[in-house]
């Protein structure tokens, strides 16, 4: 059964129709790269999946539960979906370690000791133990993003959402973050990654979803998507621009 599926979701901001009916599914363990031109609705689509934006219509079913049903415990479902933002959004008033600990304690009810042990384990994995006591303002972009990933992973999510996680980074640290994400994918994490990193999409993703004009204009494996004989006109146009 699909881990997450959407049917016909639309989103309008005032008079602007940003999403015009999106049907999408992802199976457990799949890595989906979402690419497309700027303003096409990629972020809006991703944010509709954990209801940071409420879809104007349609359904989002995650882990067998309809997120738009007013009776579901949205906080519990959200805790099983990690999200990583372009702007990191680490909690400014907490140290790196505390950033990773707080949601574990607050949402999962873990003890301080358990949360700390788990946090240190994950900081180790992203190579950030040496900066555990630092505040976000004292960290570089790449370091912040690795901690943000650790914070999301610490909740043991079933699905990870990434919204252009490397777009705000200096080029030389982009690979540090991509390496962490590749590791995560290899360990079997289900991931939806909005990205402009075509290399990552080609190598790591199982599917590439092309969002353009508020709809999914193409959905195919990367080898097909990036193939020279892909004749989809909008995809061709896009690829010619970015590659």
């Amino acid at each position: 059964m699909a881990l997450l599926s959407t049917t016909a979701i639309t989103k309008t901001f005032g008079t602007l129709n940003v999403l015009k009916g999106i049907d999408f599914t992802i199976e457990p363990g799949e890595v989906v790269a979402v690419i497309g031109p700027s303003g096409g609705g990629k972020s809006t689509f991703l944010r509709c999946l954990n209801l940071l934006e409420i879809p104007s219509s349609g359904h989002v079913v995650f882990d067998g539960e309809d997120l738009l049903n007013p009776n579901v415990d949205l906080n519990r479902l959200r805790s099983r979906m990690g999200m990583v933002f372009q702007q990191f959004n680490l909690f400014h008033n907490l140290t790196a370690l505390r950033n990773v600990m707080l949601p574990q304690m607050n949402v999962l009810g873990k003890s301080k000791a358990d949360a700390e042990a788990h946090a240190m384990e994950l900081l180790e994995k992203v190579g950030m133990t040496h900066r555990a006591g630092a505040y976000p303002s004292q960290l570089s972009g790449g370091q912040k993003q690795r901690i943000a990933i650790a914070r999301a992973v610490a909740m043991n999510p079933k699905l990870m959402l990434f919204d252009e996680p490397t777009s705000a980074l200096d080029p030389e640290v982009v690979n540090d973050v991509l390496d962490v994400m590749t590791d995560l994918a290899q360990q079997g994490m289900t991931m939806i990654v909005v990205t402009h990193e075509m290399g990552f999409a080609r190598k790591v993703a199982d599917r590439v979803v092309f969002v353009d004009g508020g709809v999914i204009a193409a959905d195919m494996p990367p080898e097909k998507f990036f193939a020279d004989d892909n004749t989809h006109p909008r995809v061709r146009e896009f690829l010619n621009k970015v590659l």
Partner: protein
Amino acid sequence: MKTIFTRRRFWAFLFALVLLGITGVTAQAATAATTPAPTPAVTSEKLAALQSGNLTLRVGTDATFPPFEFTDANGDKMGFDIDLVRALAKQTGIKNVQFIQMPFGNIVPALQANQIDVGASAIYISAERAKAVDFSDVYYPGGLSIFVSDKNTNVKSLADLAGKKVAVQVGTKSVEWLSQNQPKAQLVQVQTNDQMFSSVKLGQADAVVTGQPGGRYFIVQQGGLKQVGERLTNENYGYAFQKPDTAIKDSFNSALSDLKANGGYDKLTAKWFGHVATAAPVSAKAHGLINISSITNSAVPLWNGFVTTMEIIGMSLVLSLCFGMLGGFAKLSKITPIRWLGTAYVSVIRGTPFIVQLFLIYFGLPQLGLQLQPLVAGVFALGLYSGSYVTEIVRGAIQSVDKGQMEAARSCGMSSGSALRHIIVPQAFLRMLPPLGNEFVSLTKNSALVSFVTISELFLVGQTIISRTFDALTVYIFIGLVYYVITNIIGFIANTLEKKMAVYL
């Protein structure tokens, strides 16, 4: 076009709302005014309760008017009225008497609002006042007189006051009498008795028109002034009572004739006026510019006033934070009526003077049946006023926290309450600290205004000291210094806290 229309509708709605509120309140006040006065049985009950000691006789007085009532260096009230009321109460069998300090002009309203039982403050019996309160028999004859600087040679009579600046105390008989009998005099209305005399000594006014006993007492104590011309009026002093309290008034009247018969009354007049009646003008006492003794002699009442001021600041600060948090969150609420409530709170409280709010709470609410202790009214008014500013500080600070912080917290599954508590409010609080520090400095300064509702805080203590020593310069400099130190400490605390909390910036 469309926005103009809706804006007009908004104003019309607001206007209607205000009108509705006002008419509602006046309607209630009107019913309160027309309810029949309690029957005599009720007042006898009150008298009995006073005599048994179950009730305390609350006597309102403006103890800034020697020799009738003033405050000594220990902060105790003394004077002819104080002694006589004590003697009369004793004669009547009333056990407990409490003197409550209030500005003269507030005494009649305080009687009407049942905040005091007797007004004893050298009050002239007048037909106008008798509409609002009942008066005892005459307990001392008085009358208005003119006083000028002893160097003044051009004011000798009432006629000479034309075009002159004449100092009078707000709310006293002099104001009305002069406007009828010497409308060409320019009135300089001051708050306290000593300010009247000071304004002549300092050249801010040419003459004082006030009760003869008080003026003569000043001459004896301080010098520098002289009385000119005949007495202007033959007024009589009486004690004022609440209209329904006829039993208490009657018992005071019979006690007064008892004291006059047994010589107790004469002893008191000799004590307080004897030397004045016979005294020739006395030369001025030597006074330095700054008299540390004005402060050191009154160290105890000043300390008590300081403690009261700190208590008021502390309590209203907490209240202000509560109102501010509530208001701030109300203004950010997703629920429109709550948001409106927050907006209305800020708009009304910031749009009206603090002193009006304070008087409304202390003198106005009793008409709606809600009577507050002076301290409660003062703290509540300060907290409410300051809270409207804190509301905007809270709202601004919370809105200034990056939206991504809330989104990150929510995306982890945290509730919005948890996110506020652990992430948003701590960050907002840091941003609030500098403006909060400023706001609490304002609150500290505004706290001096609650002296108007009879709270003996630092400023009022200072005024009573001045009414006795006439040393406004020293006392106000000292009091200013104390407030300066308090406000700087608040600033320092806000700064230190900010530095300590700002580790993550």
